């Protein structure tokens, strides 16, 4: 039976020059959008039902938002440098982005502590629980991005610098995902702020 099917892997190219992994990444991001869309809709529905705890968002979330936005800029700079033969800049901004990403997650954690300190507990009124859950699930997605950045960093420092098309494509995947979690947070932050 089908002895000819070997275990080799297949690499195919899209005929229209479209980069299939990037397409797949976007499909995956669409799926993540649906997840957060449903969480924020659930928030609105539940809030509309009354008995809802109102509280002021701790300041640290403002600062973490700025950190996240800056990290998007630094990563974009790194990508630009990679394409324009600025090796030093590329190798400087990439680790900086990674550090900013880690700082963001730490700041979110401090933000949760600050929330707890003002009496908003995870297991209290759903008004608070939603805040923890939404920002927590987002942080999990950022941690995924940190892993991707780490891989990009290994590429940058373990391989000789060569801005080939293949490596640009790979870098582009990380870039798009990181911008995505960045803008996702911006949306969630504004949502949680004005609600």
């Amino acid at each position, binding site marked *: 039976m089908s002895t000819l*099917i*070997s*275990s080799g892997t*297949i690499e195919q190219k899209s005929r229209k020059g479209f980069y299939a992994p990037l397409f797949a990444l976007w499909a995956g991001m669409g799926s993540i959008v649906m997840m957060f869309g449903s969480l924020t809709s659930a928030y609105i529905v539940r809030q509309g039902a009354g008995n809802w705890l109102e509280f002021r968002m701790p300041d640290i979330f403002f600062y973490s938002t700025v950190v996240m936005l800056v990290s998007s800029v630094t990563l974009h700079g790194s990508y630009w440098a990679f394409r324009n033969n600025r090796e030093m800049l590329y190798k400087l901004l990439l680790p900086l982005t990674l550090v900013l990403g880690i700082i963001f997650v730490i700041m979110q954690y401090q933000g949760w502590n600050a929330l707890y300190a003002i009496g908003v507990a995870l297991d209290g009124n759903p008004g608070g629980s939603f805040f923890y859950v939404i920002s927590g699930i987002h942080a999990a997605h950022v941690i995924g991005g940190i892993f991707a950045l780490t891989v990009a960093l290994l590429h940058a420092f373990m391989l000789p610098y060569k801005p080939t098309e293949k490596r640009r494509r790979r870098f582009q995947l990380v870039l798009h995902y990181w911008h995505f979690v960045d803008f996702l947070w911006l949306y969630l932050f504004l949502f949680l702020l004005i609600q």
Partner: protein
Amino acid sequence: MSSSHQHETDVLIREQGYDDHFHEHHHGDKFQSNFITHYIFSQDHKIIARQFLITGIFWAIIGAGMSIIFRLQLGFPDDSLAWLKPLLGKWITINDAGVGALNPEFYYALVTMHGTIIVFFVLTAGLSGTFANLLIPFQVGARDMASPFLNMLSYWFFFLASLVMFISLFLSTGPFAGGWTAYPPLSALPEASSGSGAGMTLWLVSLTFFVVSVLLGGINYVTTVLNLRTKGMSLWRMPLTVWALLVTAILGILSFPVLVSGFFLLMFDRGMGTSFYLSEIFVNGHALENVGGSPILYQHLFWFLGHPEVYIIILPAMGLTSEVLSVHARKPIFGYKAMVYSILAIGFLSFIVWAHHMFMSGVNPFISNFFVVFTLIIAVPSAVKVFNWISTLYKGNIRFTSAMLFAIGFVSMFISGGLTGIFLGNSAIDIQLHDTYFVVAHFHIVMGIAAFFGMFAGVYHWFPRMYGRFMNETMGRIHFWMTMVGAYAIFWPMHYMGMAGVPRRYYRFDTFDAFSHFAGLNQFITIAAIIVFAAQLLFVFNFFYSIWYGRKMTTQNPWGANTLEWTAPIEPIHGNWPGNLPTVHRWAYDYSKEGADKDFIQQHLPLTDKEKAEAEHH
């Protein structure tokens, strides 16, 4: 078909095919690839399709077997089930008179597991997983999926989900027992019932793995269809199978994450003391601390997936049916474009009707009106499809193969079940019918049986493509007629019980005055179910028997079909076509075309001069 024809096909692909500079990346000699990389951790779409199918068959036997046990309870509530003790152990209690009774808690567990297994493991993974994998790369003319590696992971996450669910069947507290929809509070409070503890935890873990599998698979399917079509395969030349599988994958990518959100909140309620779904509940006389939650919130999140999910199940079956009907009626599918637009319309509408499952959950009646309207509108594209299938059959040169019989059976079931949906879609009529056997009858006919029929049509039709042999036709026809008659015998009477108000999910009815006169009918249904179950065992036998001993396929294109999978070598190879990829020149439905010398023209055949002249004319 002669072997000279096969030769022509090969020459045509070699000379006029599309050269994608394909060369296999062998890791060592092919004879070194061992059993493990070959059949187990395979990245070949054809092997992965078989893995999904066989795992699906395994689950179908378990899921259907469970239904036989609970049907025995419903049909013969006073008879002894002591003989099941060796299988079910402590879930059968034997009284002093030696009469064995099924534990009521376990009865609920069986009903719950039956639903979960059939809906997710058989009709989602077993159906889409099998046919998306087998047909998408073949029919669009690709070497494999966009990412064979993620594709392999998709199967193994399904396997993991299966394993966890299987283990939950053997817990001493039993598997989850709160219904396949897992509504809180039964699902949210580990202390609510015996299955709500470890059973529910494993249920959640299993289904989370399952969603990962669906997403990895779905992203791959969409990417493959949209990026890896061969030269000439424009969207409007794709077979309806590919269209259906594409929209199915999109629905999965967009709706399953919402279910996961619902699950996350449920996990927090179970483990972290939050109150998303819980409010003012008493368990064993003790008041719980949770306030402020809403169980309705879970229902919204569940059904936002749940309704698209029923179309995730039925769309692939529709695609398979369309293809099989057209091939075996030797006619182009009637209204190809209308079929595509209906698939798209159904896909879109399926996202805005979810609350028709919640008319009786206390949602605002004005909001219900909105959902009534869209629910009834979804009947329009459904009816278009039915009309087109029937028109395809009309004056066709029909070959009544097993595949064709099941495809026709699909149309019958879809009509019967779709009509009852229109009753349920009216929120006023639903007051009487909700949570009765009418609903059970509706969704078993339109989803359960119809989707199984589509799947059977697909298996009988593409079995030669999968295994190089045919299934036995005599057994296939016996299988069809027993299932067709038997399924109606089981589910038709349930409509009457439902209209009389008999509620679903009850352990026994003979103790209620209002329902005890249905005892005879319940016995009849149970006997029919046992007969239908036996017919399925015949199918399973036929399936495995034919893998090794079926009649061998000697020509590439035994059904005289137009799609590309029938141009690939009989003996499947890695990369599907040995040299170039076939180039596509026409749609998939040139059957019985006037002036052609055969009653089919395959998609890779260039237009004749006459056809070219006609095309310019238009």
